[in-house]
């Protein structure tokens, strides 16, 4: 009897321990997670620990490097040489953001399903099929052949130095919740991150949609809906600019584009629309202090932890401050004692699709001219958590991967699309930033940009000697009109053209223009006079507002720049709303509708966070877009609506245009009747909403959301105004992820910045979301740029 009880009790104990020590399905092991031994309790941070503001790091070379953390936890690193510097950068960044950098590299590698299971399988397959992993592998070979290799290896060693010190109890909390551990870092992972950013910035194009639209509507109508150069644009390189070079001609191609068949495929996800950025620089003559001012605010998905991490890097040779992307060495947007720089997305289409002609007699090869080439095969294995291993064989042509075929996204068995993407060529964009960090003058800036091939980026520049410049830099193939804008035929692609690039010195560029400022906000880089063909998905509102404001300003101050970066003026509304209001018959309106009309009539077009007018306008305008483009909503057809700008222009100049007719109704509509209908629909929608839901910050719901979609670590309905089309481009998912203003005085560099997040990636940290409130209010922090280690020490002691 006693034996039975003993066995029973022991068995029960073991059962209890077993169940709580092992994950059940997608839940973590609760015994481990909730215990004080290795559970999340250990991630709590004491206030006292915040007082420790200096850390001494021993580097492999035997030196001790000091890291000073200021009152916002920004680390300032003072090292004696570059190996030590980048080693410590790796260590310091890992200390605050290890989970984030690892998770991003896993996403880029198409390995998220290893962590979160089957729900990430589709997106993993897509990421592997577009070939970033292969491109990153080849990029590492470039690092290794270059003096740059010491930088990336030192950085890697620094990260691993931190990982090796980690005990299970102090793993970042996301590892504990998701039930996995960090792997060793490697140069391959840093390369993956750069490719991932390239995907974020160029991974969206409309080649397929445009091809389908062209075939459906005919050339004339297509050009009306999707003009290559819409009227009234304000390009990055001012219109008066003379292109002082003779353009190279494209090498011969063998047939005309685009293909004449319909392509349809499905996507696991679509890139959100408003990822762009603003930057500008003002010449000293136009500023109050007689020093040039440079401003940069990149727009990205707003995440916790923030995509950016502030820091200062210093050796006896150079001293730089700015934001870095955790996982890659150097400062990406920032300044040093001589120059400042920033980036916006160039949007030049460097992602082209080609239809593959499969060899019907041997499906392992495809047609190229009169021959057949065998596909290269890359077997991708997915170790899905809690599921069986999945294998996906991806075919590669000489141009790139076959992304869509019968195994993935293609509805038609024999319709295969191969991707030709500049990002898939091995490259080392990180070296550009490494060189910019040390750059002293304009020539250094141009030399640094030579390493930058993809994505196309507008690099704005200013220096202490009052030079300002902007260059849209990237490797762009010399193309014929229409080439790359539509789906082409792989079998007739001339291989000699794959690396036939526009020379870098012919990239759009201007230095010290007579108008006294340079700027970019993802608009056309040039007007039609630029001697090379290009196409892209461009911006039509922010850039014109920025340029209007900059032109009208005199004796510009830092405060003027802060105001401009936070400008909520909704130019689209200002241009189209008056016309829309004019189409509504006031007499037949309900009292609610009359109230809305009156509110909108008095609106000054500022989309502030606490007003309702932007919400009313947005709903009304969205309905106008929907009703106008009903012809393009065809079941099973991959199409895209024309730009809002084009739609607005058509309404204002061609209100009787045929496409305004709503096909499903007997009557023939014009723009005016659509506007009226859209208004009625909007009023109906408004009746179904709570009053509070119409307040812009609630309606728009700008949020900062955790990278692994953990709601408890996210913020919703942040009280910030603006819209993707406003200079303050705060949309729902994306927005200004960093706002920086730098004044390059002859004696001193003064800088201000803010981002919506906090330096620490630990959700338990009291400073986790420290900066969000100020960011939303449009306020800035003074950036502590210490000229020497002694000054850093002094400051830390004073503020502790």
């Amino acid at each position, binding site marked *: 009897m*006693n*034996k039975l*009880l*003993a*066995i029973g*009790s*022991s068995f*029960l*104990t073991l059962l*209890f*321990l077993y169940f*709580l*020590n092992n994950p059940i399905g997608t839940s973590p092991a*609760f*015994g*481990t997670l*909730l*215990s*004080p*031994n*290795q*559970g*999340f*309790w*250990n*991630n*709590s*941070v*004491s*206030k*006292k620990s915040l007082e420790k503001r200096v850390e001494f790091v021993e580097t492999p070379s035997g030196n001790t490097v000091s890291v000073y953390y200021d009152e916002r936890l920004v680390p300032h690193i003072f090292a004696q040489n570059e190996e030590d510097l980048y080693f410590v950068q790796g260590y310091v960044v890992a200390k605050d953001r290890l989970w984030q950098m690892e998770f991003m590299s896993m996403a880029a590698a198409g390995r998220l399903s290893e962590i979160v299971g089957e729900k990430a399988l589709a997106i993993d397959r897509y990421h592997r099929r577009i070939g970033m992993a292969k491109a990153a592998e080849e990029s590492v070979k470039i690092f290794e052949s270059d003096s740059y290799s010491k930088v990336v290896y030192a950085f890697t060693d620094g990260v691993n130095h931190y990982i090796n010190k980690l005990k299970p*109890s102090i793993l970042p*909390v996301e590892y504990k*919740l998701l039930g996995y551990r960090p792997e060793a870092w490697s140069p391959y992972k840093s390369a993956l991150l750069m490719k991932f950013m390239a995907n974020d910035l160029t991974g969206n194009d409309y080649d397929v949609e445009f091809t389908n639209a062209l075939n459906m509507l005919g050339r004339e109508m297509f050009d009306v809906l999707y003009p290559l150069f819409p009227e009234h644009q304000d390009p990055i390189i001012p219109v008066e600019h003379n292109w002082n070079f003779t353009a190279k001609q494209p090498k011969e191609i063998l047939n005309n584009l685009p293909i004449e068949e319909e392509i349809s495929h499905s996507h696991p996800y679509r890139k959100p629309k408003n990822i762009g950025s603003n930057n500008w620089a003002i010449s000293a003559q136009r500023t109050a202090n007689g020093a040039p001012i440079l401003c940069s605010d990149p727009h990205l998905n707003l995440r916790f932890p923030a995509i950016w991490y502030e820091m200062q890097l210093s050796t006896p040779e150079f001293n730089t401050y700015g934001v870095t992307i955790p996982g890659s060495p150097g400062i990406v947007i920032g300044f040093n004692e001589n120059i400042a720089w920033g980036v916006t997305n160039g949007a030049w289409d460097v992602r082209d699709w080609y239809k593959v002609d499969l060899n019907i007699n041997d499906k392992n090869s495809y047609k190229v001219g009169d021959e057949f080439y065998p596909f290269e095969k890359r077997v991708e294995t997915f170790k899905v958590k809690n599921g069986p291993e999945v294998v996906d064989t991806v075919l590669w042509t000489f141009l790139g991967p076959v992304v869509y075929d019968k195994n993935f996204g293609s509805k038609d068995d024999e319709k295969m699309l191969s991707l030709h993407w500049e990002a898939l060529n091995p490259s080392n964009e990180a070296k550009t930033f490494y060189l910019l960090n040390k750059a002293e003058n304009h020539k250094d800036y141009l030399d640094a940009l030579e390493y930058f091939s993809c994505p196309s980026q507008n690099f704005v520049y200013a220096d202490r000697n009052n030079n300002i410049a902007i260059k849209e830099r990237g490797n762009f193939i010399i193309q014929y009109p229409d080439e790359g804008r539509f789906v082409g035929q792989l079998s007739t692609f001339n291989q000699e053209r794959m690396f036939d690039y526009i020379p870098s010195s012919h990239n759009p560029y201007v230095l010290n223009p007579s108008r006294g400022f340079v700027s970019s906000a993802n608009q056309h880089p040039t007007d039609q006079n630029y001697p090379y063909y290009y196409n892209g998905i461009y911006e039509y509102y922010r850039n014109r507002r920025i340029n209007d404001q900059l032109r009208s300003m005199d004796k510009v101050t830092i405060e003027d720049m802060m105001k401009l970066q936070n400008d909520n003026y909704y130019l689209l509304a200002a241009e189209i709303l008056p016309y829309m209001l004019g189409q509504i018959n006031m007499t037949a309106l309900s009292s609610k509708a009359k109230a809305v009309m009156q509110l909108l009539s008095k609106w000054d077009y500022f989309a502030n966070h606490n007003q309702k007018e932007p919400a009313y306008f947005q709903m009304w305008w969205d309905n106008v877009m929907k009703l106008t483009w009903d012809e393009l909503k065809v079941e099973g057809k991959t199409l895209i609506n024309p730009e809002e700008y084009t739609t607005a222009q058509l309404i204002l100049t061609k209100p009787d245009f045929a496409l305004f007719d709503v096909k499903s109704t007997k009557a023939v509509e014009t723009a005016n009747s659509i506007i009226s209908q859209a208004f009625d629909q909007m009023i109906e929608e408004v009746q179904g909403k709570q009053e509070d839901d119409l307040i812009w910050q609630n309606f728009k719901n700008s949020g900062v959301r955790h990278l692994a979609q*953990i*709601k*408890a*670590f996210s913020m919703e309905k942040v009280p910030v105004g603006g819209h993707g089309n406003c200079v303050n481009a705060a949309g729902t998912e994306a927005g200004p992820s960093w706002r920086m203003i730098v004044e390059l005085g002859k004696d001193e560099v003064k800088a201000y910045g803010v981002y919506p997040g906090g330096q620490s990636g630990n*959700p*338990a*940290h*009291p400073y986790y979301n420290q900066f969000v409130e100020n960011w939303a209010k449009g306020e800035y922090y003074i950036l502590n740029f210490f000229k020497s280690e002694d000054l850093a020490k002094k400051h830390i002691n004073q503020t502790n």
Partner: protein
Amino acid sequence: MIINISIILILTALSVPYTPWYIAAVIALAVGFIRPGKMSFVSGMLGVGLAWLGYILYFHFRNDGIITQKIASIFSESLGNWVNAPILILVSVIIGSVAGGLGSMSGSLLYAAFKSNTNKVKRNKRTYKLKIQ
């Protein structure tokens, strides 16, 4: 019983920073075996439970409850609004308590089974001797 509780509490507290969580059950089992008794489950439960409670409250308060509240809201998303910070503390402590209680009880019962087995062997030997005479 107080002595049992104290020993388990001290040993568990010392082991928390260095060992995985289930070691508490092993400690409780050892103490339950060496000092068995009827209230073994309770001793284990209180010994481990109080040790864990001490650590957990320390972690909770030094952080102003931030981590507790955030993790609790992760759970309340899937389990319901009744999950809050105090519940999370309670459940954490309960896990430790049950592990300690079961371990201690098992230790005690194992001792009892071991002892009765030895006694049975002794009794059988004596019966045999009487028979021979």
